[in-house]
């Protein structure tokens, strides 16, 4: 177990610059998700940490040991990194057990106890030990791949979009199993993903990447509630962003006066409200100061529903409501906001 310290990491392929000065700190024993859209450089970052390619500038250190830096390069086989690639990449010519013990010293490869221990850790039955990869389901393959990575007790575990090839039903269970196994083994882990649910639900820290840069890195709830900018806000989930005027800790805009989550200087600002904060109710009274909206579309998901509605003389907003309590399209509803709004940093539009 070790911490991971990445400083000023840059990498380009030919004339294409993939990473620009990335800094990342992953504390010992913690789980960080690197979140970004495809092509943002997150997989390159992971490959540099694993040692499959070398950075142009910057350093990578495991605790006090620099593994990549100017004039220093530790080959991948001596970094003690557990690597779980997309789709598992199990060795097709070896059984599950032989895959798991692949990274162990020769004498320990025959130990069935270690195999059973690891299968138990990743939540698989010992019966799968003698099967070949093609006889395993996608979720089982992924768990074996994790067991294989954990077997040599690596300093750091790297997971490269390990769940993206699984179908939805299998994905949730595999995610939980993997997260439990990583916590149980007290591993320091870095997960690369483009799925915000995955990042938010599994990690202790979410590092958001965009165009080869690290934009924000914080606890899941912090990046969700206080995103660095409007793009991050929208990437982490659905967002309603409106213009407002701030004075004395209150913001006044199309959604009426809103409380702020953090103090902010007076003046124009952009506000972030999450759809689940916006409640639509049928009790329209017509009283002064009441905000009403006309429902445009309703997307019903069973457990909940997303409602698009147009505020009278204002913007179109999105609301999430419990599935059973959804309004009908065309209905006029009263809009209320629960909880504080967040002021997005940066210059608001129109100023």
């Amino acid at each position, binding site marked *: 177990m070790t911490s991971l310290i990445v400083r000023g990491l840059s990498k380009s392929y030919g004339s294409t610059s993939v990473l620009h000065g990335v800094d990342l700190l992953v504390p010992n024993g913690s789980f960080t998700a690197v979140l970004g859209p495809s092509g943002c450089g997150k997989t390159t970052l992971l490959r540099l940490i*694993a040692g499959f390619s070398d950075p142009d500038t910057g350093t990578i250190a495991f605790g006090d040991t620099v593994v990549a830096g100017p004039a220093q390069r530790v*080959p991948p*086989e001596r970094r003690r990194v557990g690597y779980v690639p997309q789709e598992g*990449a199990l*060795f097709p010519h070896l059984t599950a057990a032989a895959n798991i013990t692949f990274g162990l010293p020769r004498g320990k490869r025959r130990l069935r106890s270690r195999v059973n221990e690891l299968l138990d850790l990743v939540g698989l039955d010992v019966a799968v030990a003698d099967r070949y990869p093609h006889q395993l389901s996608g979720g089982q393959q992924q768990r074996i791949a994790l067991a294989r990575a954990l077997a*040599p007790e690596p300093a750091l575990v790297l997971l490269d979009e390990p769940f993206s090839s699984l179908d939805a039903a299998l994905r949730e269970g595999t995610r939980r199993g993997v997260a439990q196994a990583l916590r149980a083994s007290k591993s320091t882990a870095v997960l690369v993903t483009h799925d915000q649910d995955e990042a938010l639900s599994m990690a202790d820290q979410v590092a958001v990447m965009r165009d080869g840069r690290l934009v924000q890195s914080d606890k899941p709830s912090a990046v969700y509630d206080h995103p660095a900018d409007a793009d991050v806000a929208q990437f982490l989930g659905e967002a309603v962003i409106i213009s407002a005027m701030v004075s004395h800790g209150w913001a006044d805009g199309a959604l009426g006066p809103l409380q702020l989550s953090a103090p902010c200087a007076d003046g124009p600002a952009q506000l972030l409200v999450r759809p689940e904060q916006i409640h639509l109710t049928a009790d329209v009274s017509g009283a002064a100061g009441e905000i009403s909206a006309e429902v445009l579309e309703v997307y019903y998901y069973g457990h909940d529903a997303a409602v698009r509605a147009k505020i009278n003389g204002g913007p179109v907003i999105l609301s999430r409501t419990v599935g059973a309590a959804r309004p009908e399209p065309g209905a006029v509803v009263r809009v209320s906001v629960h909880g504080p709004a967040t002021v997005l940093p940066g210059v608001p539009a129109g100023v």
Partner: protein
Amino acid sequence: MLLAAVALIPLLFIIGYTIAIGPEQAAALIWRPRMGELLWNTVRLGVGCMAVSAVIGTGAAWLVERSSLPGRRLWHVLLVAPLAIPAFVNSFTWISIVPSATGYSGALLVVTLSYFPLVYLPAAAALRGLDPVLEEAARALGNNRLTTFFRVVVPQLRPAVLGGVLLVGLHLLAEFGALQMLQYPTFTTAIYDQYKSSFNGQAANMIAGVLVLCCLVLLMGELRLRGSARYSRLGPGSARPARKVRLGLATAPVVLAMAALAVLAVGVPLASICYWLITGSSTSFDAASLVSTATSSIALAALAAVATTVATVPVAWLYTRFPGRWATLIERSTYIGSALPGIVVALALVTVAIRGVPALYQTTAMLLVAYAIMFLPRAMVSVRAGLAQAPPLLEEVSRSLGNGRLSTMRRVTLPLIAPGLGSGAALVFLAAVTELTATLLLAPIGTQTLATRFWSLSGSVAYGAAAPYAALMVLISAPATYLLTRQAGKERS
């Protein structure tokens, strides 16, 4: 690089030679009535054989894969079986019982019967790979069964069928033994005759030049086809098997026609060999010679298989791992080198060796080089497929688990590519073990293989004595053919 250079020796030799003797002399040698006659013979046999093969191969493939023809597995085996009978053995079986099967019609019959499986196999594979979803989509868009066939099925079959037809053409241009035996002169037989009778380098080399030109024309077509044709089904899962078209009342005539084809392509040759084995073995049967030629055939072929496969690995590695212009150039050059007829390869090697390295002339090493040049692509295809089984990701995973480069090679890469190496070596072995043309020209004095011994016996009309050699060659080739049908069967499931 070295491999590419060696593979290109024959082509460079022909080009260099033509430049060296100057345009006037080259023109004088080329613009002769004899040349026109050979060209006409070659072209009309080629076009005829390619056309008939296309019709028979595609038709049979459709019947086997898409109709209610009974006994599909049996027909599949019977339609691939002609590949186990080398063309020159096939022509021997025909001419020894039907002496009039000579000239254009005889040549067309025998050669087509030998080569139509080269169209059948890719056409059948393509039909099997066609996702019926596409046809269903066309039907849903308002096409009936016939227009669906022409607008959806035919365009998707075209690359496979054309590829097979061009392969037939290349084989035909290289064919020597069968045509010589059927007394149908083409470029290859003319080159051989010139070479044997007068050692007349100039004339033989110029004919070879024209022949190479013909090959290159076909090859360009093939390469363009390979480059652009990407109709294979993408995406996960396997295609559902298509619904069969019911033949109904047509079943009986169709079965009869297929049976007739099988009798001509497989029945006649096997019956003929059996006939000569029975009637001929009493007259002269030299068991010692049969054993010794078989031994040298197998030894040569095994050496060729190992050498060629080993030579292929670096090129295939380069091509799959570092794709780029250079890798492609090297890979293609091995391909071009091998598309040239064995007779041209042999001729070029003889001349180059006599001028450059006389010590090599008439050695086993030189024969092995010729085999390697001719059969590289067979190994290449398998080795590349094998390397595709070992993606770099698996090697990276192995590195991250603490294995160095060597250990990764031993524990991951080698076990994964071993089947590819094995099948590549087997394919080369089976091609080399019945090779005739280059062996005739290049084998060290005193070395006789099954093919050359058979050739000299059947040339002197000792049919009975030749039959055991023919039978042995068919027996040795049979496993490869069996593998081909089994492979096709695996794709089906």
